[in-house]
């Protein structure tokens, strides 16, 4: 029996011009856009459906969210730098930048944890009102995506060396795909931040 091999994972497909891995990642991100798009749509519907809606800064901690925005933006640049380091054949720098990316993601989650903790202390839960329901849903789903990114990046940080030594092009492609996902997570937050906290 022949072994099935997934082709064009390190070289571009002659028809599409991109690797199958990258094409698959973009299709996945397209489905993610629809997932968050549905929730943004629900937010608009809920907000426009009532006569009064609280200003985000009245209930949410804007300085903490600003800090988290800066943390996520910084993690996005360290993620792309880790990919660039691989392209420059600097594996040590790649690991350093990826480790910083993971630490920044964890810092984001810790800050978010403080924010959630403060809300729970004051008995503000998703069931409290519509504002908190949509706030916890959107930020909670985004937080789960951050955790997913940490898991993937940690896998590449601790188990990537062997693949880099045997299939460097494929490994660089994997980091590029992981980066695409991570930048998408950053992109979602770029819109969540003003919509929830500042408007």
């Amino acid at each position, binding site marked *: 029996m022949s072994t099935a091999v997934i082709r064009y994972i390190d070289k571009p497909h002659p028809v599409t011009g991109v690797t199958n891995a990258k094409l698959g990642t973009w299709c996945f991100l397209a489905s993610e*856009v629809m997932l968050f*798009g549905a929730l943004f*749509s629900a937010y608009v519907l809920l907000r426009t459906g009532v006569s009064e809606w609280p200003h985000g*800064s009245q209930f949410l901690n804007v300085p903490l969210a600003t800090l988290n925005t800066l943390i996520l933006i910084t993690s996005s640049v360290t*993620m792309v730098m880790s990919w660039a380091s691989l392209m*420059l054949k600097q594996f040590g720098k790649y690991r350093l930048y990826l480790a910083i990316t993971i630490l920044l993601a964890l810092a984001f989650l810790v800050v978010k944890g403080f924010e959630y903790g403060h809300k729970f202390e004051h008995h503000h839960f998703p069931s409290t009102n519509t504002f908190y329901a949509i706030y916890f849903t959107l930020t909670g789903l985004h937080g789960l995506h951050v955790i997913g990114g940490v898991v993937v990046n940690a896998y590449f940080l601790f188990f990537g060396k062997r693949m880099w030594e045997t299939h460097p092009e494929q490994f660089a492609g994997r980091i590029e795909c992981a980066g695409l996902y991570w930048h998408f997570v950053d992109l979602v937050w*770029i819109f969540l931040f003003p919509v929830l906290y500042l408007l």
Partner: protein
Amino acid sequence: MDHGSKEHIERQVKVYISVFAALAFLTVVTVAVSYLKLPFAAGVAVALFIALIKGSLVAAFFMHLLTEKQIIFSILAVTALFFAFLLLLPAITSAEVMSYVS
């Protein structure tokens, strides 16, 4: 120039740093504008416009959309179409409710 060449990547690294500085600056601008207490519609427009610029920077440079192949843009075009429809749904629903009420 070959997009995978050492010179190209080294030049890109400098671009990444510049984009990072622009994103950080725009984040501060977003927060600063929110303290101006603009009218609601203007506040929404400014906040979303800045977010759109920041998102475009991330997509264009960090996600390499500037140099991406046609197939990726085709996927994104379909996604944008459905995304726009999703965001229009509340407006359509509101219009229906308003006509029912009147």
